[in-house]
């Protein structure tokens, strides 16, 4: 049996944890750059604020209803998420962290699942303050469906599909577009065959589905019929590629400022590489203009540089990134976004040094990087950095309403005046 545990309005709930005043008040969280709404509390949903709504178009509504607006604080959400996942891990050793706010749990062999699911939910609430819904069923796709059902219809936040009647009740309620793995286009296509609910989909002729949708479709149907085809993916594969990119807070055409942004992105990528103890054999730099501003001249520049010897050294990666950047940068455009991708990733221990390697003493640089990481870990991100990454940060995100990093930075912890 699988359980899907999904946090309710996760980002909004994280913000509320440290501001209990906001209990019962409408909250929205905005995307990077404060552009559009990416999370809403129930109260904000009730006001009719839609997911993805553009922030500045909502100004009146926000003002009139006293909606509390936050910039996204991924440091906080990430830490609370890991607390939730660790708590879940106490209930079963087999867990797949599916996204920042949901996890699949393997509950095979546990007795009395409705009660166990409720205990899981109550413990997560007690230990982390985050409310969840739990769906339990024989397959991952059914567990997803049960979770959706629990969120809408179960007062205790738990739905267990352990009988044929329950399966029918959930699947006849679930719209076809809400079935896991069925996107907007597929559901529209299925509607033309008058398939409106998950139940109707699950009862389609398998051979017909095989010819129209292939094995993936057949698998979905089997899963909905309680035959588990998808296993838990417990160990996330090491990343084959790391990308760091950001949209700028404003349009930028200045070469120096964009260069600084690129260097900072390289710094992040290199840190991630070192954290997973691997090195990259290729670096790609891209910059582009805002395609939504159709009156502006448009440009998309990208260049990859293969590296002779794979590396995770910030200084070396910056050197190559700047080489690439100076080739792709063109004067006279308003740039909106810049990014860096490192790829061809190999474990640190398996680096083949090229005979054309220009760096003599690699171990010396490794030591430098270790020291830099240690200092930055202790003193705060970017305390020591390569000068090319700049000090001005004119390209930085707009994050005007970001809350504190209550759980990860000693200078920003919750202060209670007593």
């Amino acid at each position, binding site marked *: 049996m699988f359980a899907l545990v999904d946090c309710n309005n996760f980002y909004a709930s994280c913000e509320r944890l440290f501001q209990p005043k906001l209990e019962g008040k409408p909250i929205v969280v905005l995307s990077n750059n404060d552009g559009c709404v990416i999370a809403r509390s129930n109260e904000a949903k009730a006001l009719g604020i839609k997911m993805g709504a553009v922030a500045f178009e909502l100004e009146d509504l926000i003002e009139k209803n006293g909606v509390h607006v936050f910039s996204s604080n991924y440091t906080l959400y990430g830490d609370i998420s890991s607390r939730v996942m660790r708590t879940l891990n106490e209930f079963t050793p087999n867990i797949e962290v599916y996204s920042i706010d949901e996890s699949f749990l393997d509950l095979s062999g546990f007795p009395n699942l409705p009660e166990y699911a409720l205990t899981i939910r109550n413990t997560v609430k007690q230990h982390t303050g985050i409310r969840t819904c739990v769906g339990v069923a024989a397959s991952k796709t059914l567990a997803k469906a049960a979770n959706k059902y629990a969120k809408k219809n179960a007062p205790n936040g738990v739905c267990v599909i352990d009988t044929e009647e329950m399966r029918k009740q959930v699947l006849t309620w679930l719209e076809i577009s809400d079935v896991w793995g069925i996107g907007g286009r597929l559901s529209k296509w299925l509607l033309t065959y008058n398939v409106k609910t998950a139940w109707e989909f699950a009862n389609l002729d398998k051979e017909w589905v095989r010819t129209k949708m292939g094995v993936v479709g057949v698998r979905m149907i089997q899963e909905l019929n309680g035959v588990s085809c998808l296993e838990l993916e417990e160990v996330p594969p090491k990343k084959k590629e790391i990308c760091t990119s950001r949209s700028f807070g404003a349009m930028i055409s200045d070469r120096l400022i964009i260069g600084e942004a690129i260097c900072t992105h390289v710094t992040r990528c290199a840190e991630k590489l070192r954290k997973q103890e691997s090195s990259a054999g290729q670096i790609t730099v891209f910059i582009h203009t805002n395609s939504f501003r159709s009156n502006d001249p448009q440009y998309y520049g990208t260049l990859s540089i293969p590296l002779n010897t794979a590396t995770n050294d910030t200084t070396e990666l910056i050197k190559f990134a700047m080489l690439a950047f100076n080739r792709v940068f063109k004067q006279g455009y308003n740039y909106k976004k810049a990014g860096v991708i490192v790829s061809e990733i190999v474990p640190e221990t398996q680096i083949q040094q090229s005979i054309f390697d220009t760096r003599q003493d690699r171990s010396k640089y490794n030591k430098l990087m270790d020291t830099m990481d240690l200092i930055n870990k202790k003193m705060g991100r970017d305390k020591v950095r390569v000068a090319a990454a700049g000090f001005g940060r004119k390209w930085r995100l707009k994050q005007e309403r970001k809350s504190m990093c209550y759980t990860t930075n000693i200078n920003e*912890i919750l202060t*209670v005046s007593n």
Partner: protein
Amino acid sequence: MKELGNDKIQLLRIKDNGKPLLLPFVDNTNVKAGFPSPADDYLEEDIDLKKLLIKHPAATFIIKVTGDSMKDAFISDPALLIIDRAVRPVNNDIVLATVNGEFTVKYYTNYKDQIKLLPANEKYKPIDIVDGMTFSVVGVVTFVIVEPRKVNNVRPRRLQ
């Protein structure tokens, strides 16, 4: 070992390698040559302050309090508190609670379903939790960390 008056003080070096904060029982890293230390076989595990202060990592938060309403309960102004959400409050625990949307740190008592939050300073009155108030216990205060140099309004008593 250093001699300071009559007190013998052993210097403990705090290692920090990004791993948990460890205080070694014996610091023998300076032994260069000669006989191996006879203490080597008796080395114990290092003291891990995190392990002492944090029993339930996923459920533990650290907060700062200012103000003097709990001054008689070892909570100086300011102090850092370790809050463990996994611990259920029992009578006379110090808790972090929310009352009508505000955080407060107080003694918790619950007799016959009458919950009271009690300060540890006679200047302040107890808070009775009554119908119509929103109230919740966030977690139990399991440790108080005080930095003497930063504490307000506390001076050594003059010698008589």
